[in-house]
């Protein structure tokens, strides 16, 4: 008996060790053959795999290297990147959200591609700026996204409304809808969506933060202009009752879900959402259009210009090969097809110009918003931490729930932003 037990104990521990070493050895890529690992974000449209299979076949023909594309859902992507950076299991090439690029670059994970890209004038300037840290470029603009106001044309027609051209018209249109459509939310004011707030802050002339000559950041979120914008935005809910009580804790996805359900008349919404909304509720086909976010006295309010870069990782064994793949993906043909198949906007000026002339009511307003009133958040690696702390969401939520006045909430937010950006938070 005793002998048997010892043997099985030994066997069990041996098996465990084998299992553990098997885990550790799972990442080897086969010998001499050249393989490129590529991460692409997922969650925009259903079948990107066919597109990437084609690109991979083309790439293999040109270089003889095989491409292994992995799709990563946006929601998990940041954690997955960080884990990969920590465990040195980074891909060769990846699509990186523009607000993450400075952060990963600062951490030393991304390759400096300034010299490879050369002249950047062909790209949308905001996206180049977002990928630049200390005058070096770490990501090629691939596609862009911007938010404008999505609205229900049938509701507008029924009540004789026109697309608002300034803030007061926006408010009045929403008030008309509120009085006429009891079951509808005229203009949701979501507490958990920073990019729905920012157009009002920027439109009124405020800013999140600016870097002085000595390198320190000063937050303008508590400036009189920013407060005016925040007050207008939150008063739409608090004074005019154009939003709903529940919206105080809504994320952008909750706004979208309610739009799909036909409960929302107007909402700040991304350029990639109309396709998803119409897919989820085909009844809305032909009853949805968009307009650029109006400025306080006419013109446009700036809206966050986001999107994706393609970046080469420092961990890549063959950065030349990785760069070739990036070039292929951003080449005119594939870039055009990618933006057509998704509902993203192209990251190149020349391609974007065609969209701004499009007649499609779900494309043109977004392209106009992007080319005329697109704006970035502070380009500093520490801004990721400000977003991580959800400073702006906390501010809006505390105002909407009545816990703080605009003055108090914006002062707290400014203090947190400055502390975090200046590196003592």
């Amino acid at each position, binding site marked *: 008996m*005793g*002998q048997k*037990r*010892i*043997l099985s*104990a*030994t066997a*069990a*521990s041996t098996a*465990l*060790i084998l299992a*553990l070493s098997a885990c550790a050895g799972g990442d080897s890529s086969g010998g001499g053959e050249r393989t490129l690992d590529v991460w692409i974000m997922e969650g925009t449209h259903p079948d990107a795999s066919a597109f990437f299979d084609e690109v991979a076949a083309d790439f293999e023909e040109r270089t003889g290297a095989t491409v292994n594309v992995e799709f990563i859902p946006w929601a998990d992507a940041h*954690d997955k990147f*960080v884990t990969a*950076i*920590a465990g040195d299991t980074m891909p060769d090439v990846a699509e990186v959200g523009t607000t993450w690029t400075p*952060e*990963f670059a*600062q*951490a*030393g*994970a991304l390759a400096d591609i300034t010299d490879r890209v050369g002249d950047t004038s062909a790209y949308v300037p905001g996206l180049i700026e977002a990928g630049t840290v200390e005058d070096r470029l770490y990501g090629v603009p691939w596609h862009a996204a911007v938010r404008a106001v999505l609205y229900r044309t049938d509701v507008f027609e029924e009540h004789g409304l026109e697309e608002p051209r300034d803030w007061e018209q926006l408010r009045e249109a929403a008030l008309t809808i509120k009085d006429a459509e009891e079951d509808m939310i005229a203009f949701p004011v979501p*507490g*958990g969506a920073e990019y729905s707030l920012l157009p009002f802050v920027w439109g009124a002339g405020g800013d999140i933060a600016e870097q002085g000559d000595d390198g320190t950041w000063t937050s303008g979120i508590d400036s009189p202009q920013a407060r005016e914008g925040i007050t207008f935005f939150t008063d739409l809910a608090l004074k005019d*009752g154009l939003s*709903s*009580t*529940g919206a*105080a*804790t*809504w994320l952008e996805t909750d706004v979208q879900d309610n739009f799909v359900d036909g409960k929302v008349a107007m909402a700040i919404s991304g350029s990639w959402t109309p396709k998803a909304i119409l897919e989820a509720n085909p009844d809305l086909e032909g009853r949805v259009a968009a307009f650029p976010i109006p400025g306080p006295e006419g013109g446009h309010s700036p809206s966050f210009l986001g999107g994706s870069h393609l970046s080469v990782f420092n961990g890549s064994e063959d950065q030349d090969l990785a760069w070739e793949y990036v070039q292929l993906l951003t080449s005119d043909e594939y870039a055009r097809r990618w933006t057509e198949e998704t509902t993203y906007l192209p990251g190149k000026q020349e391609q974007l110009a065609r969209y701004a002339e499009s007649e499609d009511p779900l494309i043109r307003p977004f392209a106009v918003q992007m080319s005329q009133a697109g704006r970035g958040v502070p380009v500093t690696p520490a801004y*990721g*931490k400000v*977003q*991580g*702390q*959800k400073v702006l*969401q*906390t501010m809006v*939520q*505390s105002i*909407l*729930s009545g*816990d703080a006045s605009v003055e108090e909430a914006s002062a707290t937010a400014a203090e947190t932003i400055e502390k975090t950006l200046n590196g003592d938070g």
Partner: protein
Amino acid sequence: MARPVLTRPAAPAAGPGGPRPAPSRRLSARTRRLVRPWALLAPALLAIGVLLMYPLARVVWLSFQDYGLDNVVSGQPDYNGLDNYVELLTDPYLWTVALPNTAVFAVFAVGGTVVLGTLIALLLRSLSPLWRTVVTGCIMVAWAMPAVTSTYVWIWIFDVDRGLVFQALHALGLIGPEGFNWFTERLTFYAIVTLNIVHHGFPFVAVTVLAGLLTIPRELHEAALLDGANAWQRFWRVTVPTIRPVFAVVTILSTIWDFKVFAQVYLMPGGAGSNAEVLNFGVWSYVRSFSQQSYGLGSAIAVLLTLMLLAITIVYLRALFRDEELR
């Protein structure tokens, strides 16, 4: 890992002494006696070491460092001694928000879970075997439900604009058509979390306490009945003292679980960080570590939580067992 390998040659020695001079003969009987328990424990120790002790030690180690994303990449540690702990312990947020949200909530959640579980166990004991099986089966459904699912169900029930609770209260005329946002107020937020946790946790208590109840000899209750004890007295004088260890176990386990609640807070509207009023230790640690990439500070929060749980467990054990019962 040297130990089990050492004992392998010892094995033939246990057989009838063959002509081969087994190398293991060099191991005396005393050595074998010393080695054998460790050999038997080795697989378990190895598993615990790899899966439990290493991550634990790593978290403690991290908590003495200023560890950000750049440290992750470079692999260079940046020790800052007790700075993380000083920063945490002097932060009013810890004392006014995170600690009450963790500890006060846990008191109510553990209390609710144990009381409801015990009541259900008493109900189960009085049922016939058939009905006992039926009721146990029903409550098991609540237990088997993943935390994420049950959290979304509760969020849906309390949905501000269209939820069941809103509709019921509105129909009764208790709240107006504009509704009430349960998720922005700390108290109502945690009331919903408590409901969720109690609903999810009571089946374990019910089943465990029932097992304890069934071991109580009938004679004890009969004797108490003859002495004129009513149901209330029989419960407190007979049932509770007899199965005190069972209560100790379910209370300690529930306390540990309820202190480190994560998904049930994180997934609630505002619970992922945008409503700073409602974070508890677990979510705070996660937000600090992963959303803000202050892994050192996040680890320090986790270490504080662990120390707190250890202290509470020790106090519980001492209070619930008298010294002689421990032996």
